[in-house]
């Protein structure tokens, strides 16, 4: 506890002399309840990781549900997976991994105090994130057109009569029994729940990125206080990791 201004009389004995020299000996961004900049950075980093662990548990529940239903209704999951486009999914993986790289580079620019570099990296991350959501929109709209969204209008025709469906025909699917075909709805429920929650995280991330671009343009984050950019980077990389697991589990079931 070797805090520079934590003497016993602080701040009351300064009452008569007027100004409290609160920011005289430390950077303005050091909050008064921390001992040092290092302690503040470590604490916020720790708190961010605790938040990410709650996110791990949140997505973990979805992944566990996926694993169990996949074991129960494996043929339905295979047929459902054949409705997804591997090129679109792989391209989205490429976009998201690259956006993680540009985000990491943004953190580096903030640490080395490169303002224009930081703004550029954040804008690239923003654009790559929007590109991901754009492709996801194309995929979702195809599912809506084919009535593969779980609900009253769900259509089983791609699974009962695979020859009527280009994707099912290309994958060489055989007609399924009605009870197993109906379980493709479970696959698509999990598909929309998992990719939807992932997309929501992307939307929140992109909104925060917009705010950060505005702030970085005004000169924030490149004066030695990089905590916000660094912790947002952790969030963005976490969203990337979720997709790294979603892509093989949802798109790549039994393609051989």
């Amino acid at each position: 506890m070797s805090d520079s201004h934590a003497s016993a009389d602080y701040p009351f004995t300064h009452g008569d002399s007027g100004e409290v020299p609160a920011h005289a000996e430390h950077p303005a961004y050091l909050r008064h309840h921390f001992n040092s900049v290092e302690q503040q950075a470590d604490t916020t980093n720790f708190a961010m990781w605790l938040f990410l662990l709650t996110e791990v548990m949140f997505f973990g529940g979805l992944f566990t549900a996926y694993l169990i239903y996949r074991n129960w209704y494996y043929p339905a999951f295979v047929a459902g997976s054949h409705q997804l486009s591997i090129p679109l999914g792989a391209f989205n993986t490429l976009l998201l991994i690259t956006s993680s790289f540009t985000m990491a580079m943004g953190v580096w620019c903030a640490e080395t105090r490169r303002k224009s570099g930081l703004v550029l990296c954040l804008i690239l991350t923003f654009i790559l994130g929007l590109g991901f959501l754009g492709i996801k929109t194309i995929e979702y709209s195809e599912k809506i057109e084919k009535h593969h969204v779980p609900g009253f209008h769900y259509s089983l025709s791609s699974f009962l009569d695979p020859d009527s469906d280009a994707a099912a025909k290309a994958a060489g699917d055989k007609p399924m029994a009605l009870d197993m075909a109906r379980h493709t709805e479970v696959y698509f429920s999990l598909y929309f729940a998992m990719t939807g929650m992932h997309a929501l995280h992307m939307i929140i991330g992109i909104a925060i990125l917009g705010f950060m671009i505005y702030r970085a343009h005004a000169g924030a984050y490149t004066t030695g206080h990089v905590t916000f950019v660094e912790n947002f980077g952790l969030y963005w990389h976490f969203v990337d990791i979720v997709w790294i697991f979603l892509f093989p589990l949802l798109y790549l079931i039994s393609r051989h």
Partner: protein
Amino acid sequence: MSEQNEHAHHIVSPMVYLIILLALLVGTATTVWASYIDLGEWTPLPGLVIAWNPIVALAIACTKATLVVLFFMHVKYSTRLTMLTVFSGIFMFLTLVGMTLADYISRAWGRW
């Protein structure tokens, strides 16, 4: 890791980020490629069939996630508190998933 360096803010170089990016792209290409190949099955017990394809896909995904956590998320260069936090979180997650799956696998044990 030495104690003195633990609190020094480590700046990861762009070259490390670039190498990780390339490794992640190679991993993505590998997982797509591997999904088109039939890697066969393993039957350790009668009725218990383990397919290799999803195991390989998950192994590649775990490798990619580890690279992201260690380098993009700076855990390799973080304090021991952060390392312990990340490790305990993953351990907790695997414990919960493992125990849940153990229940579903063993519920009808011997009645296949």
